[in-house]
């Protein structure tokens, strides 16, 4: 009788470890869609145009633009453009859309883009059309080093030049420039 009881206990002990080793395996897929992106950091600091002497030289000012971008492989591209969404105000001073003299211009040059190519030559700011600042090719991306840029964020310098026309009335004038970055 005792032997029969010990035998049952032994069988029970043998079964316990066996049932505790039961496992269940399942899988889950993680998917990330890496899409082309472009982002600009809003330039909160106004650009003040100044001149170095008292003659009728042009007013100049420089802005450093910060951005991040990622373009698709093979056929992707991106661009940063600039457009004057508000002309100089108040009236009587410089104007992009209706300058008081024919030779009055508000222009800029680009340089030092750490991702993409800076615009070439002298560009004229317009109130009607977006003009090029940086052109980004396919398979471009910000940060982390090759194949992306080492800089993060990327930067580009834009230098503005405004004609100083004696026709301008004295006073302070402001305009708003809108930057747009796009990527595909």
């Amino acid at each position, binding site marked *: 009788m005792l032997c029969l009881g010990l035998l049952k206990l032994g069988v029970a002990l043998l079964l316990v470890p066996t049932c505790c080793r039961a496992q269940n395996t399942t899988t889950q897929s993680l998917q990330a*869609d890496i*899409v*082309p*992106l*472009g*982002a*600009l*950091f*809003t*330039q909160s600091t*106004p*650009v*003040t*145009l*100044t001149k170095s002497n*008292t*003659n*009728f030289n042009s*007013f100049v*000012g420089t*802005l450093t633009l910060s951005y991040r971008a990622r373009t*698709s492989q093979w056929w992707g591209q991106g661009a940063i453009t600039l457009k004057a*969404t508000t002309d*100089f105000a108040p009236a009587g*001073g*410089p104007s992009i859309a209706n300058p008081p*003299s024919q*030779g*009055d211009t508000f222009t800029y040059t680009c340089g030092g883009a750490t991702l993409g190519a800076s615009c070439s030559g002298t560009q004229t700011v317009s109130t009607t059309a977006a003009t090029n600042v940086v052109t980004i090719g396919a398979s471009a991306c910000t940060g982390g080093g090759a194949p992306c840029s080492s800089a993060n964020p990327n930067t580009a310098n834009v230098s*503005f030049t*405004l*004609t*100083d*026309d*004696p*026709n*301008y*009335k*004295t*006073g*302070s*004038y*402001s*305009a*708003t*420039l*809108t*930057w*747009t*970055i*796009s*990527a*595909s």
Partner: protein
Amino acid sequence: MTNVLKTAPLLALALLLTASTAHAQYGDTGTTTVSVTIGPQAGLTITNSSTPLTAGGSNFNLFSGSTGLTYFVRTTTTGGGGSITLKVTSDFSPSGGPSVASPLTPADALSYTCIVASPGTACTGTQTASTSSQTNLASFGTNVHTTSSGSTASVDWTLANDPSYRTGTYNATITFTISAS
């Protein structure tokens, strides 16, 4: 065959969605305020690099000549003004001839009259040039400006032809100053 017919539309839809995502453009915008302060300003250029003074006829007629200049000016909209003045900064040399600071006789003066295009106002009458003080050529009122190509002015010089002057060539330097507020 039935399975293929069921999965084909799904595959097409998936391809369409993929293509749509791939060609989508993503962008962002930011704004910058550009500001400039336009202050009063003035500048000028002398049209002729030198002004020869000549005397017509064989008598002791006065020497005369003209200096042209182009000026640019912008004065403040309220309470502004400005002027163009001139000063003899280097008297005639060498010695023995005419002199602004130490004329041989009191009548041996270097004098001038002014012609000034708008928006400037020309000096009135005949002015006597000086080595010690600025003398007026033009004046500007408040809230005036030239065009971007500037305005013109000229100074018509007259120099006494004193028989006491020794023969020779004599040079003086005149400095023009334009100011605006």
